[in-house]
């Protein structure tokens, strides 16, 4: 479903701030894979997702989604294949537009935007139904401006928008990191629900090792723009946080120093 072939990205090349964020990075995802991604700050997790989403062009390598080479496609054209939820709840929605208008924008992802009405009556009924699975009461606030919603509500809505048109690949970049633990758990639960229901191929970055172990069928750990751990199948099912820390130390030769990840 997704193939990254020897992708490299260096920021600020040739300056003192030069940062090799992805180094000869390769990753292949099968149809229906739910891969959790962990790694310390600055490991290159977000960079990997931005490379897939086309936020900027990569320096070298190839990105293939569902058989199509998207390496040179601009961000808005790759959106056809992708559903994205970001770490910052502000990023995924348009604050000055209504809940239903945001959903309507997402519904038209990958379609040509014409002079037809931006939202139809049938859609409203559809959105009302869809919003119910979030269990947040948003189905009664269709016309409320998204700017009035809480961070958790916005993330849940963004998740719904990302999956409204079944994406080839769902990209979740620490989408629960900015939420309080209770809301985060709720949003994760909904994520699991939707991913299973639609059998979505998913990449989920998280800082929480427990979540990384609990969810998905495969786990990768990044460091300095490389994959240093790749665990799947039975081995992943049996994995514990301690195992993961040992494996990390063995693979990287350093101690894991992200308190947040251990405690979380």
């Amino acid at each position, binding site marked *: 479903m997704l193939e990254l072939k020897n992708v490299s990205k260096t920021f600020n090349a040739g300056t003192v701030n030069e940062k090799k964020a992805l180094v000869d990075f390769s990753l292949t995802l099968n149809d229906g894979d739910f891969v959790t991604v962990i790694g310390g700050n600055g490991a290159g997790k977000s960079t990997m997702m931005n490379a897939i989403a086309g936020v900027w062009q990569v320096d070298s390598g190839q990105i293939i989604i569902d058989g199509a080479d998207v390496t040179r496609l601009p961000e808005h*054209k790759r959106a056809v294949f992708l559903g994205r939820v970001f770490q910052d709840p502000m990023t995924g929605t348009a604050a000055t537009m209504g809940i239903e208008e945001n959903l309507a924008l997402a519904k038209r992802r990958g379609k040509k935007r*014409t*002079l037809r*009405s931006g939202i139809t009556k049938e859609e409203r009924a559809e959105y009302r139904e869809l919003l119910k699975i979030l269990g947040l009461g948003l189905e009664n606030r269709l016309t409320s401006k998204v700017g009035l919603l809480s961070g958790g509500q916005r993330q849940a809505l963004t998740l719904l928008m990302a999956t409204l048109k079944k994406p080839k690949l769902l990209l979740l970049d620490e989408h629960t990191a900015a939420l309080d633990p209770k809301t985060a758990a709720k949003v994760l639960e909904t994520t699991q629900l939707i991913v299973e229901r639609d059998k979505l191929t998913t990449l989920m970055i998280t800082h929480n090792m427990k979540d990384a172990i609990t969810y998905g069928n495969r786990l990768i750990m990044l460091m300095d723009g490389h994959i240093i751990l790749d665990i799947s199948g039975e081995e992943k099912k049996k994995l514990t946080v301690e195992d993961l820390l040992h494996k990390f130390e063995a693979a990287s030769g350093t101690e894991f120093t992200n308190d947040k990840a251990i405690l979380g």
Partner: protein
Amino acid sequence: MNIFNLINALPGAVAQGLIWGIAAIGIYITYRVLDIADLTVDGSLGTGGAVCIVMMLSGHNVYVSLLVATLAGMCTGLVTGILHTFMGIPAILSGILTQLGLYSVNLKIMGKSNQAINVDKFDLLVSLRYIRDVVFYKNTILVVLVITLLLVAILYWFFGTELGCSLRATGCNGNMARAQGINTNFSKVLGLMISNGLVGLSGALLSQYQGFADIQMGRGAIVIGLAAVIIGEAVFGKVFKNFALKLIAVAFGSIIYYFVLQIVIWLGIDTNLLKLLSAIVVAIFLAIPYWKAKYFSKPASKKEVKTNA
């Protein structure tokens, strides 16, 4: 300071305010909807005026002339849009470059620094002379009011379409728009074209109204437009929530601006100071939301901002 002088001047102020209101609505689209401060307008207003007058002088029908003036305005927006998106120049600078270039273009269109048109020889749609003592359907205030309402209706419809929604999303949150497959560069170019089309139309009407187009007519248009937007929001913002009403509030804001201007003139203040006054007033109004957030926000509203962030 005869009060009748002021009262006599008011219908003219309304007419002028309404005409400028169309430009202000265009500025609202870039400034508020697309979140771009577009300085092209100082040039495109003159372009609209020049094209309209020159076309009419060479024998074209007034409606055709207005249409071509609008299209010319759209072209200026296209240029700024290309400078900004395709060439990666910051929006403000793109607008300034286009504006500067338009100075020459407008001179070339007119052939000299101004072109007059005689209301007795040409069939104008609006004029200073059509304010009083004229059959009601030719009254400039009514004509411009109808045009404004028509434009507001079209814009209200447009911003409810799929394409219009993609423009609003682009202005509100570019990252989100791109993630939903919207070509934000295209949205910006289209928005700039629509905006400057309206400004061009406004310039065309203004040149007919005053009976001439000249190279200076667009000077400070952005400030007058922003003043109208800000006054409209300050006066009607609490009640006018619907998009169409917000646009109408801008038109009203423009009328209020010209009312105040008339009063200032009537008070005998040196008219050379008018631009300075306008600039100061707009600067203060632009600062108010910033000051409000910084010095006057209650703890409760501060918290609200934070949880949203």
